[in-house]
Structure formats: C-alpha cells, structure tokens
C-alpha cells in the first residue's frame, strides 16, 4: 500500500510485518522513531504474539535478543552510534553463537565530540564482528531490506544489520509502498532455528573453545558469509517476483556501461551522486555509480566485474579509519588487486557527522580526480583554514585546550 510516511514509521511497519516475537530496545537518536513505532504496533495489537521489552541499556537490548533467539524466537532490536559501541561485546557474541537477530542501525557518528548526525562510523566499527551488513539507499529499500534481512539471517543462522542513514532516511517523510501481510508471510516462513534451548532436547550453547577448534569456528563463519554472497541476489530475485520491485542484492550499477569513472558509495548519498552524474553526463563526462548494498559479506568478485572497465574509481564514504583513511576504499582496493590493468583508485571521505554532501562538491571532486588526482584520503569540503589555524595554535601553545571547542570558537569569531 502506498503511503506518505516517515522512514522510521515505514520501517516499523515493515518490521511488524515480519512478525518478530521479541523486540527489545533502548532509545538513541536517530533510531528512536523506529522502536517507538514497533512498540506502538505491539501495544495496539497490530503485531500479535510479540513482547516489547524496555531495557536499561543497549548491551541489555542485544543480550535479551540473544537469549530470545537462542530460545527459538524471532528477535529484533535497533540502535545507533554510541549504542552500538555500548553493545559491542554482545554484537560479536550474537554472531559467534550463530543467532539470526536482525538489528537496524540508524547510522550516526560516534563521539567524541558527541554528534547526533549521520555518518557510517558506527557501522564500520562493527564490520569485522561477523554480522552481515546491508545498506539502504532509500526508505523504500530500507523497508524491503528488513523483510529480506530476516530471511537472510534465518537461512544463514547469522545476524544481519540493516543500515539506514540517520535523519536522511529515518526522519524523511516520503512515498513508500508498504507490503501486504499475506505477501510477507509468503516470502518469510516462520523461524526454524538450527539450534534451540529446549528441555526436551538439552544442549549446551556457548561452551568454551580452545585453540583446537577456534579457527574452524571462525572459518565456518567466514564460509557462511561467502555462501551468503550467492543467497543475497537470490533473495532479491524472489522479492522482486513477489513484490514487483527490485530492492537489495549485492550491488547496483547506474550508467556504468561506458563509464571511464565509476563512483562507489553506500546508502542515501547515492541519490545525490546519481543526480550529479546526470548533470556531468550532459557535459559529456562518462561517469557512473556502483551502489554497494552488501558491505558484509563483501562482494569482491562482483565489484571487480562492475569496476573492471573503468579507468578511475572514486570511493565516496561516510567514515574514516583514523590513521589509515577510508575503510571502504581500502576494501575496494582489494577488489581491484590482481587485475592486469586496474583502474586508478581515489578515496574521499565525506559527510562526517552529518555534513551535507552537495552536488557541487561532488562534481568538483569527480572532475578533480581526472585532472588533479590526490594522494591518500581526500576530506570533502574540509575547512582548511581553521584546520591550519588549529595546527598552528597547538604547536605554539602547550595547553591549547579541547580541539572541538577551539574550532567552534574560531568559526564563531570568523563569522
């Protein structure tokens, strides 16, 4: 059913259609509207046979989900930013135990400095945690990915994070097609666990494993994610057959066939990038986009195929691995390795802490990569003047004070 609806509310409705049995949540902006939405659907009886548990922390939220999932219930939670870090230990635990929990991340920057706005830092911080990570480009895709995520998680017995850009998606009111319950029920069968706590058949889950088998446990997790590379496109096909629209999959290409430059990005910024591409193409710039949906598992072969013919790749990403550069660019580099004539890779970090990513800045970036390529990581729209002043000041004065406050003071006095 077509609705003019807030992204969070639409996701809440989609999650409810998946019939989770246990929902546990702890509030954090910009995830709040999602869990408030599902909470209301439990309260008003729309979502039957489900317990909504208000817990005292994100660590407890995911721990409750772990217990519920191990006991055979379909479990869901959502968080963002600090909340994901607060539950970090349980994040690794859920995947190590092979529990198919689905968790939404309303992607948000990590402090300090505390910042409630969007970027992908928190998702990246858990990229090695053994969860599958799917990034939504639009609210329609956010809705659809949740439905696919439950199926993916349960078929692989492995948890999935659905990553949606905080505010940009979670708080945007737009037209979304909410699926029908019957269709979701057809697509997503009831949860059939591969391991379950049952007094009739007692098993021990979570026993200690030493050097004699730990590598094998990890290998099997890695193997499963490699298997998921085949399953994710199948789930997207099945979804398309049933719901009549294409959502999800490993990646999506836009005008890449003849492109000499291909941009790689994840999430909602792909919309802006496509608009920029359309304008640049009018100038004759042969440019295209690869939208990466599945960050974990990372589709190395599919990316290599999609990027092989280009001369330049520009990775635009909303996170930075401090001391290294862009983590996505680093991963893309892996996909390009071993090519006979690999395209040249340019790495750009953009939109940190919610900074708007404009078409103008993107267009300049793409043009610059051809005529004046940079070394290392480029920080899009960096205010170089105040950075330089801060570096200068901290060299001169030992007690130069807190960086964030200094920058804000400088900006205030300059304006």
């Amino acid at each position, binding site marked *: 059913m077509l609705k003019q609806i807030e992204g969070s509310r639409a996701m809440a409705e989609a999650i409810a259609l998946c019939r989770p*049995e*246990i929902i*546990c949540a702890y509030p954090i902006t910009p995830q709040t509207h999602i869990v408030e939405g599902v909470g209301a659907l439990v309260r008003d009886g729309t979502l039957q*046979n*489900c*317990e909504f*548990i*208000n*817990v*005292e*922390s994100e*660590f*407890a939220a995911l*721990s*409750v*989900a*772990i*217990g*519920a*999932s*191990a*006991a*055979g*219930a379909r*479990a869901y939670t959502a968080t963002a930013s600090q909340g994901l870090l607060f539950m970090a*230990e*349980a994040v690794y*635990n859920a995947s190590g*135990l092979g529990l198919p929990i689905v968790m939404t991340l309303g992607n948000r920057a990590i402090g300090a400095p505390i910042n409630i706005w969007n970027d992908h830092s928190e998702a990246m911080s858990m990229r090695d945690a053994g969860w599958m990570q799917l990034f939504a480009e639009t609210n329609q895709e956010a809705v659809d990915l949740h439905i696919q995520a439950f199926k993916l998680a349960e078929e692989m017995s492995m948890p999935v994070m659905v990553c949606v850009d905080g505010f940009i998606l979670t708080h945007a009111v737009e037209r979304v097609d909410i699926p029908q319950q019957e269709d979701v029920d057809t697509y997503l069968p009831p949860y059939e666990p591969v391991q379950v*706590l*049952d*007094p009739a*058949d*007692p*098993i*021990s*889950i*979570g*026993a*200690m*494993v*030493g050097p*004699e*088998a730990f590598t094998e446990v990890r290998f099997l997790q890695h193997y499963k994610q490699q298997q998921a590379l085949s399953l994710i496109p199948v789930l997207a096909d099945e979804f398309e057959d049933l719901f009549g629209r294409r959502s999800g999959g490993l990646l999506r290409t836009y005008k890449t066939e003849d492109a000499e430059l291909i941009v790689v990005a994840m999430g909602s910024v792909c919309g802006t990038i496509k608009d920029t591409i359309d304008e640049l193409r009018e100038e004759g710039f042969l440019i295209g986009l690869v939208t990466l949906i599945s960050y974990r598992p990372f589709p190395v072969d599919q990316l290599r195929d999609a990027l092989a013919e280009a001369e330049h790749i520009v990775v635009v990403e909303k996170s930075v691995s401090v001391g290294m550069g862009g983590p996505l660019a680093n991963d893309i580099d892996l996909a390009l390795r071993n090519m006979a004539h690999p395209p040249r890779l340019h790495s750009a970090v953009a939109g940190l802490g919610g900074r708007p990513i404009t078409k103008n800045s993107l267009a300049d970036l793409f043009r610059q990569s051809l005529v004046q390529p940079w070394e290392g990581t480029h920080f899009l729209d960096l205010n170089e003047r105040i950075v330089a002043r801060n570096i200068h000041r901290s060299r001169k004065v030992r007690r130069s004070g807190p960086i964030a406050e200094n920058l804000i003071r400088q900006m205030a006095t300059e304006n």
Partner: protein
Amino acid sequence: MEKDNPMTSETTPGDGVQKLHFYQKGTFTVGNRLVSSDERSVQSSIDRSNALTCGHRACQGCGEALGARYAIDTAMEAAGGNLIAVNATGCLEVFTTPYPESAWQLPWLHSLFGNAAAVATGVAAAMRVKGRREVRVVAQGGDGGTTDIGLQCLSGMFERNDDVLYICYDNEGYMNTGVQRSSATPPAARTATTPVLGDEPGNVFGTGKSVPKIAVAHEIPYVATATVADLRDLEAKVKKAMSIHGARYIQIDVPCPLGWGAASHETIHLARLAVETGFYPIFEAEHGRVTSVRKIRHQVPVTEYLKLQKRFAHLFKGDKVDPRVARLQARCDANIAEYGLLDAA
C-alpha cells in the same frame, strides 16, 4: 567423616564427651531418609536430575560446584525438568564446559560475563511468546559477574520483575581469572589485586556492597542468602523461589579452596563458620521486607573463621593481634545485631 560433623554427632557443651546423636525429623539434616517421601530433600532422591553431572573440572572441594549442583537440581525438580539455565562467564562456566565436553544435562546457554540476567530475560520472554509457560529460567554467575560487571543487567531484570531466578555463587572474588578483588571481597582479604603490601595489606575496609540488600531494595518477590553449609536450607529456598513468578535472587556463600587458601576438606566447615560467626548473614526477604533469618545458636569468634584461610594469614603474623581482626569482629557483631541472629525465636 569428621568427628565434629553436626550431621552425625553433637558435642554437648560442658561434658567434653561426644555423644552420637542422629538428627532426624524436624531438622534440615542432609540426606534424611526417614522423613516421608514428599518431605525428602532432592539430594536424597535417586531421581535427582544430576543437571550438573560428574566429569567437570572444578577444583577439589569447590563450593561453587557443590552449590550449583544442589541449586540446579532443586530447580529442576521444582520445574518438572522444564528448566533452562543461562550462565555468566566465570569458574562455573569454564569448569563445566571444557571443549568439547559439557557437564550440563539441561539446556544451557553461556553468552557473556556481564549479561546473564538480560539473556535470561530474553529466554523467559521467548518461552512466553512460544506458549511454553511451563518452562522456567535460571540465570547464574559468580560474585564478580553479579555484583560488579553484571549489576546493571541484574538491576534491569529485577526492576522489570522478569520471570527469572538469578543465583549468585559468591566466592568473594574473581576466581576464574586468578583470584582478584571483587566488590564482594571482604575487608582485609588478600587477593591478587589487594596484595599483602603497604599500610593496609589486603582488601581495604569501608568498601564493597551487599547485592542481597540491593535486591531487597528492588522490592522483588523473593531474595535469599544461603550457604553450602546448609544444603537442605538451600534446597528449601530454591524450591520456594521456584514456587514464585517474577524476579528472584538467591546468593550462596561458596567457599573457594584455591582463592581463599584453605584446605579442600574445609569447604563446608568454612561455610558453616561464616554463618556462625555472623560473617555471612543468612536471611530471606519478600517484596522488600526481611521475612526470616537463620539464627545462630552460639556465636563463634571470627578468628576461628579467619585462621583457616591463607587470605587472612597476614592478620596473624606478628605476636600482637592485628587491630583489624577486631574490626572484622565488629562487622560480624553488626550483622548479628542488624538481622537479630542471636535473638530468641
């Protein structure tokens, strides 16, 4: 069997002669086979579930292994075998599940060190939505996993009155990692992180907390302390806890021969002395009120308890009695006064 074991003998004060006297009906004597079958303890039943079975790797004389075996078997009986256990990281978890073995004969889940209470909440909720209300849930952990790193999850579980029985095996330290101080370590006790060095050797006075009291403050339906010195009382408390729904907390004093520096055959003796000195008050509380205490017949001086343990050996080094022994005695006296442990019934 030790000659002063009160299960089989009793010393009448004054006459200096040991009279053999079998306690029978009306006592909590271990293994009592003369009472009617419905009054019998779980431990004396050949049908006990042995939920924690043999072959685990606990140290000889481990109070935690003993406490867990009795507590879980009682809970198993009360639940008609429909029991799921969630375990925090710690000795109990490690010594029962050395890969690829498990000593547990009930469904058992170990997630993390500090989240057992929350995981158990999830299991209990899942059983409700699955329509399996007959299945009961216990969470269990050491004092570190309960009073320190797990306290937030525990408090959340209490506050929501989730249908979980949480059992804390209190051996007064982080034993699994090599005997470090926890907030349940008593003052003056030597641990690896409160060494016998400096002006105030051992654990400092004026620190630590009582989680049973914190549990009582949550006004949950049932809180009890128990001891491996009185397994029948432990059983009775677990049974009672299992007859109630909602959040319940039982903390069991479980001596640790390794961590306390005591002989492995002294475990029960030490646990009994902890009660009789007033060191470890044994009580029950319901909905925020203390409802019963286990009285002491004769108060034993705390030195008798301390002297059996190397963790307190530094108090008895010189020729002079360390003044901190008196402070520990005062602690015991305060417990006795607070809970009325010597008051006439």
